């Protein structure tokens, strides 16, 4: 993981390959997840990040291990980019006890304390107040840490979004708000849910500096995130990035996609984050086809191992049903 102290993107070959590999990992991981969903290994809701990889990968470059992440139900990509073990993420989607959240949460609730990854929130807008609070705790404890909160453009219509932006700005808190604007909230196009589709206008109304970012370009995203994080670390309060991106797949596995036509999807796929970055790197001569093949092989290996891990992981015994409802305390004979 990048240390997040640097404010510029240095696109040396190693870094380029790393960015590319992370995006490919997410892409293939999601494709495998879809496959496993059809095979009924993964159940419940499954929201794929395919097409949006540049956002999680680009932003994470700007964050350090001490920073915190709050994400949504569409968070596999963020978890992978944050460096959570793919096997644990996959096991979580299987509902196995070795999963990131002991299998209790599933696809929508991936948590990892070691990586300060605070989920995995399935309530649209619900993660924003949480992020504000994490940042408030940092500010009150003089921790120079950033809390990065990802959410979709659909969340901007929720009251919680507005209350959170106001609190973060009013109290000058170190929050990086990342609006992943993929144009749709389930089947509702942004123009049909916001009287003014320019979400960053709202950030400005709270006096929060914001930037519009090409969310299909990982380098642009990394650069914008580094600028924003650097600004936040100077103690000048929150920043807001509106990343224009697109979801190539259905909202969830239940979505018949009645609300958009295939042509639109195809248009966006042409400028997909992986293909675009690859072509550019190849053209610029920074990488060769062989590099791509290596990446695909390594990624295949990682995902294969993740699936094996998930397959072999144990189920939580039914006797443990009520564990982790309340925290065991000393008098329960367990240390909290």
């Amino acid at each position, binding site marked *: 993981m990048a240390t997040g102290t640097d404010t510029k993107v240095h696109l040396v070959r190693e870094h380029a390959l790393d960015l590319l590999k992370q995006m490919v990992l997410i892409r293939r991981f999601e494709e495998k997840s879809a496959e496993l969903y059809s095979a009924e290994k993964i*159940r*419940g*809701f499954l929201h794929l990040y395919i097409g949006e990889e540049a956002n999680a990968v680009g932003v994470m470059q700007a964050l350090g291990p001490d920073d915190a992440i709050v994400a949504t139900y569409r968070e596999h990509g963020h978890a992978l980019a944050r460096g959570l073990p793919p096997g644990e993420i996959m096991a979580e989607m299987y*509902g*196995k006890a070795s999963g990131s959240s002991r*299998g*209790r*949460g*599933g696809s*929508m*609730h991936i948590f990892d304390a070691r990586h300060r990854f605070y989920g995995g*929130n*399935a*309530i*649209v*807008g*619900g993660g924003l107040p949480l992020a504000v609070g994490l940042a408030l705790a940092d500010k009150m404890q003089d921790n120079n840490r950033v809390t990065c909160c990802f959410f979709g453009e*659909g*969340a901007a*219509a*929720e*009251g*919680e979004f507005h209350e959170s932006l106001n609190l973060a700005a009013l109290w000058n808190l170190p929050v990086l708000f990342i609006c992943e604007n993929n144009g749709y*909230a*389930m*089947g*509702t196009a942004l123009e*049909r*849910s*916001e009287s003014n589709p320019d979400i960053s206008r709202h950030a400005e109304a709270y006096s929060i500096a914001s930037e519009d970012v090409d969310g299909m370009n990982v380098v642009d995203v990394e650069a914008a995130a580094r600028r924003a994080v650097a600004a936040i670390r100077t103690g000048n309060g929150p920043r807001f990035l509106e990343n224009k991106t697109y979801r190539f797949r259905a909202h969830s596995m239940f*979505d*018949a996609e*009645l*609300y958009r036509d295939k042509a639109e999807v195809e248009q966006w796929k042409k400028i997909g984050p992986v293909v675009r970055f690859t072509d550019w790197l190849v053209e610029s001569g920074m990488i060769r086809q062989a590099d791509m093949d290596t990446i695909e092989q390594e990624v295949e290996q990682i995902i294969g191992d993740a699936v094996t891990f998930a397959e072999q992981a144990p*189920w*939580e015994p*039914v006797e443990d*049903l*009520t564990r982790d*409802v309340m925290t065991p305390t000393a008098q329960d004979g367990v240390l909290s």
Partner: protein
Amino acid sequence: MTATRTLTYREAIREALREAMQRDERVFLMGEDVGRYGGAYACSKGLIEEFGEARIRDTPLSESGFTGAGIGAALGGMRPIVEIMTVNFSLLALDQIVNTAATLRHMSGGQFSVPLVIRMATGAGRQLAAQHSHSLECWFAHVPGLRVVAPATVADARGMLWTALQDPDPVIMFEHATLYNDEGEVAAEGQVSCDLDNAAIRRTGKDVSLITYSGSLKKTLDAAQQLSEEGVDCEVIDLRSLRPLDDATIMSSVSKTARAVIVDEGWRSGSLAGEISARIQEQAFYSLDAPVERVCSVEVPIPYPSHLEMAATPQAEGIMAAVRKTLRK
């Protein structure tokens, strides 16, 4: 004997929506993704083409805002049907439902009624984990000024909406998400509405009264069926209306059987089952031969894995065990 047809619960809801829109131009449907998407559970699929986007109104993600707008539209002469995608998100709209919809008539000294229907999916059973599996019907059933119904059968899904729309006060309608694909018989065209006032006896029996509602009815009937093979004859009551509760039907059954088991997907503490148990012993204490049993959800946020979700929520086995317990078998 009237002719009947077979529909899914989803189709029944859709047909009821369509009919309501056709019969009364003041009726409109408003909620997240009810239009172009066709509804999160596809209940309103195709309706936007038929009725247009003004009457099949997609809303932004603003549960409090559009629920309150539904209240205002009802005051303004319309007959709104607000769809809150699931009860889990209704937590964001409770201020409008409890502080406004439920109080307006009383606070205004009877000047303003709120003829609003709020539909929402409820319940667990689809591996959606802790934030998407609530069964909070008991919360709504606690609030004066609201009427709460829960169609457990396809026929009720078909008939209750129109009756709810005739009600001058806010009606909350709970649709258990595991029911949408179920098939069932409904009356032939024309005969659509059904009462909201009375509980239904879905199976008559003399040994034990099983009292339930919504998604738990299937499991309860299943348990009753299996018990009958053991020679235990259960009566199964489907509450249908959660507020007000039909005490008469409950008590007449219990005074016949002298034993009751309440099956409720809500968490046990503070469940609707608790209220019903309290009422039974208040109103039928001296005819009880055994304590009233409750089969509820275990007090844990609903876990994702199937085996844990099943263990956390009422199942036929647990219901059968409770029945045997009341019979000291």
